[in-house]
């Protein structure tokens, strides 16, 4: 290899871009287009049946209800349940289950978390954004699954609730990207209350005035989550964490105030008669059990559940609750029903579903 500089320049020019290489490149491009295009085509074909059945179910709503109870998905009626399916092929689709718990139908709406009350629903959808900023939509929908408005927020969807009359909605998201973005050990939460009737944002709970023992309470490490609305459609409960403490808050939408009323009550959920709060009790970080607090006696009952429960619990009636449990061995998630007396065992309510909503 004792070529002079000049010779090697010539060599490099000659075999820089040869026609063989151009042909090879053409071949690779064609193969890639074929694979990519083919896969997209196959995806479209694969999805065809599902999309058709959905359109049919919508089309059949009016005229063929009796013959096809499965297809009666709208309007959403009291007594039924909404949830997000985890079945293969219908992941994250809203599923409506009739009161008999056997008839069900898939609605034309996909969400990461769903809630519905008083004729209004919230469907949380993560919405890209890219480069470390995650956006999400909180879609407000009506009893026909029609999206009426989309609120934009940041983070990944976590919890959603609607006040019993359907007026107010609240949603919580995980925001990673603010603080220890690259280290990622700590995520903060963001909770926003919106007015679903007027389609306006009432505010981030961070903007509400917090008091503790009648004194103003404020810190930069405040994190709010897990709103639950009372039957007066103005009072709500929520969780606040600060300086390692988990605090129970009682809030007021109209005056935008929050008051610390308890400790270690996380992700509250008010019973239909508003006499109790179901919550997740932290045994150790990342390990929770469902529990119920009686608001009149302040008595706490841990439910007969041995598995970790990381969910905002939903009440089936005044004596039973439902929440998601994870079957780690099969990587499936189910909804279970558990009596609140602390003795009755959890039984499977609906397989392969999360984010339960009982329509009242």
């Amino acid at each position: 290899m004792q070529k002079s500089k000049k010779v090697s320049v010539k060599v490099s020019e000659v075999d820089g871009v040869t026609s063989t290489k151009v042909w090879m490149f053409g071949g690779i491009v064609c193969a890639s287009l074929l694979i990519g295009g083919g896969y997209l085509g196959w995806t479209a074909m694969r999805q065809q049946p599902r999309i058709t059945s959905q359109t049919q179910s919508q089309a059949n709503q009016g005229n063929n209800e009796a013959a096809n109870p499965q297809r009666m998905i709208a309007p959403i009626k009291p007594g039924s349940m909404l949830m997000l399916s985890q079945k293969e092929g219908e992941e994250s689709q809203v599923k409506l289950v009739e009161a008999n718990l056997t008839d069900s139908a898939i609605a034309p709406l996909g969400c990461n978390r769903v809630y519905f009350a008083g004729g209004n629903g919230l469907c949380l959808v993560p919405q890209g954004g890219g480069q470390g900023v995650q956006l999400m939509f909180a879609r407000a929908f009506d009893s026909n699954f029609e999206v009426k408005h989309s609120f934009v927020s940041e983070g990944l969807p976590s919890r959603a609730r609607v006040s019993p009359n359907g007026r107010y909605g609240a949603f919580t998201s995980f925001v990673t990207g603010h603080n220890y973005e690259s280290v990622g050990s700590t995520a903060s939460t963001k909770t926003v209350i919106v007015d679903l009737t007027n389609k306006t944002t009432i505010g981030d709970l961070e903007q509400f005035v917090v008091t503790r023992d009648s004194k103003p309470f404020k810190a930069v490490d405040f994190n709010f989550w897990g709103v639950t609305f009372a039957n007066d459609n103005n009072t709500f409960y929520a969780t606040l964490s600060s300086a390692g403490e988990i605090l129970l808050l009682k809030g007021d939408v109209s005056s935008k105030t929050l008051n610390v009323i308890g400790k270690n009550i996380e992700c509250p959920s008010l019973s239909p008669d508003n006499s109790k709060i179901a919550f997740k009790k932290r045994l150790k970080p990342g390990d929770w059990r469902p529990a119920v607090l009686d608001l009149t006696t302040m008595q706490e009952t841990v439910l007969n559940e041995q598995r970790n429960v990381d969910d905002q619990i939903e009440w089936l009636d005044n004596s039973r609750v439902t929440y998601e449990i994870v079957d780690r061995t099969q990587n499936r998630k189910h909804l279970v029903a558990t009596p609140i007396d602390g003795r009755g065992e959890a039984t499977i309510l609906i397989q392969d579903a999360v984010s339960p909503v009982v329509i009242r």
Partner: protein
Amino acid sequence: MYQIENSGAILNTKDRTSWLRISRNVLFLGITSLLTDISSEMIATTLPLYLAFGLRLAPLELGVIDGIYQGAAALVKLASGYVADRWQRHKEVAIAGYGLSAICKLGLLGAGASWGALAGVTLVDRIGKGIRTAPRDAIIAASTPKAQFATAFGAHRAMDTAGAMLGPLIASALLAFTANAYDAIFVVSFCFAVIGLAVLSLFVQNRKTTDGLIEGTPAQVKTIAIGDVARLLAQPSFRSIALIGGLFSLTTLSDPLLHLTFQRSLNFGIELVPLLFVFVALIYMVLAVPFGRIADRMGRTRMFIVGYGLLMAAYALVIAPVFGMASLPIYALLLGGYYAATDGVLIAAASAILPDHLRTSGLAMLTTFTSLARLIASVVFGALWGSQGSGQAIGVFLAGMTVVVILAALRLWRVDVGAVAGGHDD
């Protein structure tokens, strides 16, 4: 953008595409980066949705992936730089890096909901990125006369940024078209990566000898020891650049942090944040070549310092958005200008100073410093934000950057000028 009018232009051109005055290697590496960035940004856009939606993994588990692996990638970077220099195999090492990342796109398909497998795929992807960057930049430098380094890197970064802009758009369009079929996105992303890899393997040449720039003779090549790489830091001008580059990174916030802080201080709709990314990238893309050209004339280290001046102005605007909503475009201009003046320019400045036979190792060392410093900056900013609030946190960073700018002006203002003059000699 840098399109070729017809394929004959590639075939017949003498090595340098005269209309842009960048070499064919730079053009092809730019195309490779464009395609690879489309591929990886498609995944970056889709992955959070896939994990949260498709697999329903808890968001907390999401964040943990990234940080840990950046450290691993830094180590691999140093090793790949050394290997590329030691055996003068820049192209092959770069191919290994791009290839690993391409395979990872398919790996996501195979990983399913297994947390361990997903973490593994992400790690390998990071390693691929760590491997390829320094050898690629060394090829750019070896294919360009010293007097045009910043222009060449500017052209490359412009194409790279174009890919980063297109990727999320393509991903969003496909998500809508395929009704959230994440697997289809991974396959399409893989195809883009493969075409990018093909451009690199077939059309980029390992040792460009156009201007007789590679001085490392086979005899020299064999004598490279790890100690030689370490001794690069004894060279005053490279040490200054590495030190100042590291210190600047220590006071530099990641874009998401800065955008979100700005969103809060100016109080504009959060939905504008993704648009902000696009506009900053667009401005960066447009300014990269002209700023590179100016840098080649007036001195790259000077341009680099000016760039940080622009970033300081952007920080000041975040703290006090005095122009109301007009602050938004001004902010995007400042930030885009900052990128155009610093990103490729720093590598150009360092490339001009580093000896040819140790260039890849030197560049790997430099970018390891800067990325580790950025990691520290993120953590420090997080702590400051938590204890002081965002305004004060940026204020601290701005103050730190002011000190570094002064230091840089003292140490670097003249460094690169000599190197350019030296470059003209041969």
